[in-house]
């Protein structure tokens, strides 16, 4: 999976939930959306990126990705 593509997808999701002023709720919204719509290999890839670098993720996306449960 091209990581640039996944980063953009995660940030775009973050942009929507960013309207929520409570960032805990917003991050939960991003996480839930990723869990419910991303194939496991995509989730693994974005989580690896977060662990290795993560610099291109927005604050909200980073917060959400950091709490992703990892698929087997």
């Amino acid at each position, binding site marked *: *999976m*091209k990581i640039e*593509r996944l980063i953009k*997808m995660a940030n*775009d*999701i973050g*942009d*929507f939930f*960013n*309207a*929520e002023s409570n960032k805990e709720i917003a991050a939960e919204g991003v996480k839930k*959306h990723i869990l*419910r*719509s*991303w*194939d*496991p*290999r*995509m989730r693994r890839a974005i989580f690896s990126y977060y662990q290795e670098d993560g610099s291109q993720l927005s604050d909200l996306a980073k917060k959400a990705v950091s709490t992703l449960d990892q*698929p087997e």
Partner: protein
Amino acid sequence: MSINKEQDFGTPAKTATESVTLEIDGFQVTAPAGTSVMRAAASIGIEIPKLCATDSIEPFGSCRLCVVEIQGGRGMPASCTTPVAEGLKIITQSKRLADVRRGVMELYISDHPLDCLTCSANGDCELQDMAGAVGLREVRYNPVKTHLDAIKDESNPYFSFDPSKCIVCSRCVRACEETQGTFALTIDGRGFDSKVAPSQNQAFMDSECVSCGACVQACPTATLMEKSVIDHGQPEHAIITTCAYCGVGCSFRAEMKGEQVIRMVPHKDGKANHGHSCVKGRFAFGYATHKDRITKPMIRASIKDAWREVSWEEAINHAASELKRIQQKYGKDSIGGITSSRCTNEEVYIMQKLIRAGFGNNNVDTCARVCHSPTGYGLKQTFGESSGTQDFDSVMKADVILVIGANPTDGHPVFASLMKKRLRQGAKLIVADPREIDLVKNSPHVEANFHLKLRPGSNVALINALAHVVVTEKLLDEDFVNARCDVSSFTKWETFIAQEHHSPEATESITGVPATDVRAAARLYATANNAAIYYGLGVTEHSQGSTMVIGIANLAMATGNLGRVGVGVNPLRGQNNVQGSCDMGSFPHEFPGYRHVSDSKTHQLFESAWQAKLSSEPGLRIPNMFEAALDKSFMGLYCEGEDIAQSDPDIQHVHSALRAMECVIVQDIFLNETAKFAHVFLPGASFLEKNGTFTNAERRISPVRKVMSPLGGYQDWEITQMLSNVLGYPMNYKHPSEIMDEIASLTPTFAGVSYEKIDKLGSIQWPCYDEDSVGTPIMHEQTFMRDNGKGLFMLTEYVATQERTTRKFPLILTTGRILSQYNVGAQTRRTDNVAWHAEDRLEIHPHDAEDRGLKTGDWVGITSRAGETVLRTLISDRVQPGVVYTTFHFPESGANVITTDNSDWATNCPEYKVTAVQVSKVSHPSEWQKEYLSFSENQLELLEQGIQNG
């Protein structure tokens, strides 16, 4: 089977609740007030002779054939224009009436060719029938001047106009006005010189005629006649089925001679179309028997090889072994499938079942990914169900109609005719669209009160501004919000939307729409008794497509425009079965009925019913499949009825992904663009060759019936079943009705749906929860379908697309479609519809054209960050300065060479509607087009070699 002609009651039905009782020829009859005597008589089987009356249009009273006597009354009134009244005693047959009618017929026939035996209408001519009915035995007149030498107009590819046979009954003129709303026909001249004239006495093809066929349908003689009937004679039986084009889902009578379709006639009892049609459904069915049809299975090892025709057994075995091989090599999740909105519900259902239960993963997606997936997401979140809220007829009770990002007269023409009828009755219209669509001011007697000509990509800013006005000017329906919606979410939203940066004044610089217009439009929408929103792909195909759908839902809830007739949120679906294919579980994260794959109760239900271990993880979406293919983790694809190599964005990326896969299986009726990258071709069946159901944009499940044998030997559901069986996951359906029974048993909203009920009712709108239910025309009447029954407001911050104009790419390209062509054009390009639109053109505003030294017809290169293509220009002020527009019906146009991979944040629906481009004059095709033509020619040669060797 028989031709079973539909009864013509002479005048339209009336819906008054008050009824009156009268006597006709001694028989008592009760009818709704306002009903004509003619219709009341017909309702008890008394046929009063008629020529100028037909029940699809209002009575005219000109032919004088339907005269009757009223006991105690004077004269002989026309029964078509005489309403029933309490206690009337009507006489329909007497010597005096017979003499008048015979006299009328004698005059008609004196100026009519007496070629009945060789006339194309022989056997279906009302004039001939009436001559018989009135007992005409001789014509005493010998006129010195007649119309018998009038010249035929053969300009329309589908019907001929023979004025020598015209009786000037005006049925065609009235049908064009009342049914279609185009007003292309008129009666020109007076007295003997009166004649039917298209536009300014032009040929039909040169006139404003849109070839909907309403005039042909209304004509009582052979004056307006389908050329297919002229060529082949009258049909001998008819089967009711459903159109395979747009999301209106018109019901048609396929009128047949054996297995040959002679004509498609719109079905009067069709609840989506009420006997109306458009040029596609009515006439463009010839693709089904086009010479390009591939009817034998084919395989090849590489896309550089010639195809090899093989038996069905060999093709299926080969496909199955390749899929198994790939799974062994790359893992269980390395294969998947794509379904299409052109497939029936039953086909989609068993396709996703095969993938989930047979492949063992959830890598199934559908073409709604690239059109209405944001509708599914946005409406599910806010209302609790992924569907529009109304039936089409609801528009007839709307007082204000807000059309956003849709072009109904081109994309959904039969519904557009209904909408135009309501607008002519006085409903107000707001259009939000970057381009001046026909509804704005190019439809006769229809003019938008406001055209909010927004910049592409600024939808959310506009919907927020409309909502801001509603909230800050206290135009809310507080009772509705308090009773029907989640109040805490509303409170949060109310505060959010009232912020100054959402105001029309603040957003004017983003949208380009004057704040005064936005304020006035918001007031108009919010203060109407009934206000309805209709939207299309101009809403969904954006990076904020889902946000916009949510914004629309917020606005409708805030103003209480939900849960009754005349209001609602109405997505106009592009293809015939977009709604159905989504309902059937063709998204990678949802089982049938929009239930998430991780929902344990649903998961258990399907595991138990399907006797298979199912994954509870979402699978890959279409664009993710392409990414995964280039990453070598997705190497096998089963694609039914969808042409991803033409329809998906950033097409060079898609082609690279298809080339990277080790096995691409295409099931289609033509060697489409995707099939040029395939290794297995399974010849599918057209909609005329199979049984099943389609579900239209109003959730109406309608029957698709086999009227001819599948040219390839099998219906598509049978092909999928064969593949499943060879793959080791047994399926043993004998008929699609058994598949529907299984769907009903597993999906609560379909629980009461069965073929038996569909046959009985004609169609059913889901939700249909039990055996007694006849369906649900209007949704959310009492509660929303969310778990707590309350509508949910969500925050919709405007986020500008990352696709920005720059000095290098200063124009925004947006896309759309045209009446005569359909999507990627695979069907309509193989019909005479090319007479109207033989190429895609680039519309450009005169200012932008002048800056570039362009005139209409010039070849221009259109360059974006993704690629370049070349089209001819059409200079038009329908687009605003800074915006260019094209259709995407021809593969060589390469519209998707220039579209980018930007997509909706929630669903990855591509942002087709916003691409920054530069346009400049060129003299030769783009590099991509040259490569495409070379590749395509080579693939057609490889096909030809395969057929010759077969």
